[in-house]
């Protein structure tokens, strides 16, 4: 792999940047792999990268029905934070925060992780109580999170309207300074380039259409649009399509897939210093380095695979944003889109072995899995390589829905990115 450096940048300037090499190969699938990963989103690619890098398992394919990073990884609003309520979740998301901090260096790829701070607004007495409970729980779990009064919140984010005479007045905010954003595409591309360099085959435009199991029930390989591929182990990392892929192996999942929408404005000069989110009114906003306001909305109320959502959902978000940040009222929106997010009953992910030997699943990240990408890939690779979970993902089994040991972020975090 040609390492990127200042010297390379300077050299390539002389040829007008026309001679940069390809970042990864486009190989034809081999007949057999030690591990096949279904889905080349950030989580699948990170899994392959850590399998090769940390566990020396390099005969790996990542099979993607579309283009890599074209699923939720390329559609999300890129908020990164770790101030979840329960210890299990805080440990998982904090593990990711640790990896985010050195990720650009590790991958030799600028993922533009920017810890500009994530501020979560409280609009009601209930919001205030929930946020303060989170802050106390986080403090005990060693996770950064602090309380701001409305005045302090406006100091941190000057465009914020803290008038008491608005529909959703700001009663305070929880701030995680180490939270922020990262460039979603660069995360997928950086992991793809790193994995490819270690020998992983990334096979795009190839849908998995079946999972073959042997006499003993264990996996034997995957049927794909490019033919049968033998595999000793299979890791399903298919986000909104997890239920359909797991059905192929006869495993029914506790998941429902909903459309979730985002939109971006025309680019403007830097006007917004941090990330602001409000779970109560489903509004999420930050400004990308290109200058666009990146705005996230809520999910539709019904399951769907349409990759579009109802216009009343985005309207509701825009209404709230116009009130909270009145000077954005005249901004024009450039694009909006939807992604299909897979939601579990307790709103926590599943990173787990399955009843089928050799089949592993990483799903249920719902509306908020981008932030976990490095940590998720890291512990899932461990789970596949060792055939047992890493300490951090051990609580996130499928079996928790039978034992009752739920990790109930649904009640705790409402729905949060």
């Amino acid at each position, binding site marked *: 792999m040609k390492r990127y450096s200042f010297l390379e940048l300077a050299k390539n300037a002389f040829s007008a940047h026309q001679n940069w090499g390809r970042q990864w190969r486009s190989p034809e699938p081999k007949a057999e792999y030690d591990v096949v990963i279904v889905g080349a989103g950030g989580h699948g690619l990170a899994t392959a990268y850590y399998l090769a890098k940390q566990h020396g398992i390099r005969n790996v394919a990542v099979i993607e029905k579309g283009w890599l990073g074209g699923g939720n990884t390329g559609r999300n609003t890129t908020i990164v934070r770790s101030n979840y309520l329960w210890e299990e979740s805080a440990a998982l998301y904090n593990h990711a925060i640790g990896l985010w901090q050195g990720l650009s260096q590790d991958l030799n790829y600028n993922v533009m992780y920017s810890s500009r701070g994530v501020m979560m607004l409280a609009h009601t007495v209930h919001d205030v109580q929930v946020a303060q409970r989170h802050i106390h729980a986080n403090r005990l779990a060693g996770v950064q999170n602090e309380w701001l009064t409305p005045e302090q919140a406006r100091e941190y984010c000057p465009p914020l309207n803290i008038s008491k005479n608005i529909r959703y007045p700001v009663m305070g905010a929880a701030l995680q300074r180490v939270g922020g954003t990262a460039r979603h595409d660069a995360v997928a591309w950086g992991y793809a380039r790193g994995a490819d360099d270690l020998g992983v085959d990334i096979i795009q435009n190839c849908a998995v259409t079946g999972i073959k199991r042997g006499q003993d029930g264990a996996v034997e390989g995957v049927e794909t649009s490019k033919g049968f591929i033998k595999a000793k182990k299979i890791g399903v990392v298919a986000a909104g399509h997890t239920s359909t892929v797991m059905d192929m192996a006869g495993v029914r999942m506790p998941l429902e897939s909903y459309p979730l929408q985002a939109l971006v404005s025309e680019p403007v000069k830097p006007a917004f210093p941090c990330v602001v989110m409000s779970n109560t009114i489903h509004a999420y906003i930050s400004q990308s380095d290109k200058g666009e306001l990146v705005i996230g909305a809520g999910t539709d109320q*019904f*399951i769907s695979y349409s990759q579009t959502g109802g216009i009343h959902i985005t309207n509701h978000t825009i209404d709230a944003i116009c009130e909270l940040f009145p000077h954005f009222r005249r901004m024009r929106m450039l694009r909006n889109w939807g992604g299909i997010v897979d939601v579990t009953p307790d709103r926590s992910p599943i990173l787990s072995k399955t009843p089928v030997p050799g089949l592993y699943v990483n799903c249920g990240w719902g509306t908020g899995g981008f932030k976990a990408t490095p940590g998720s890939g890291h512990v899932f690779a461990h789970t596949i390589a060792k055939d047992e979970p890493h300490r951090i993902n051990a609580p996130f089994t499928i079996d928790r829905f039978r034992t009752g040991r739920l990790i109930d972020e649904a009640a705790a975090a409402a729905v949060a990115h």
Partner: protein
Amino acid sequence: MLLVYCPHCDVERAETEFSCRGQAHIARPSDPSQTSDEDWVNYLYVRANTKGVYAERWRHIHGCGRFFNAVRDTVSDKFLKFYKAGESMPDLEALAKEAGK
């Protein structure tokens, strides 16, 4: 936004008058003490999450307040049928064929 038909009121209205309540025809185990853990998991948590033709519950919350069921294609979001709660599940395959799926 979807247009939803309430078979009780016999009107078609904007989706915002309704609330969607998930997969239809999931029967509560009739003998709880004899029900296995697996069956409880299936009842409480496991969902078909069908990509394609699927039956789901709706409630006309800002109208008559009553529950009914609908068959919808979850890829196009087109409704194929509405029927009252208590009526048996229609033949989903036949409906899919009719709709040219």
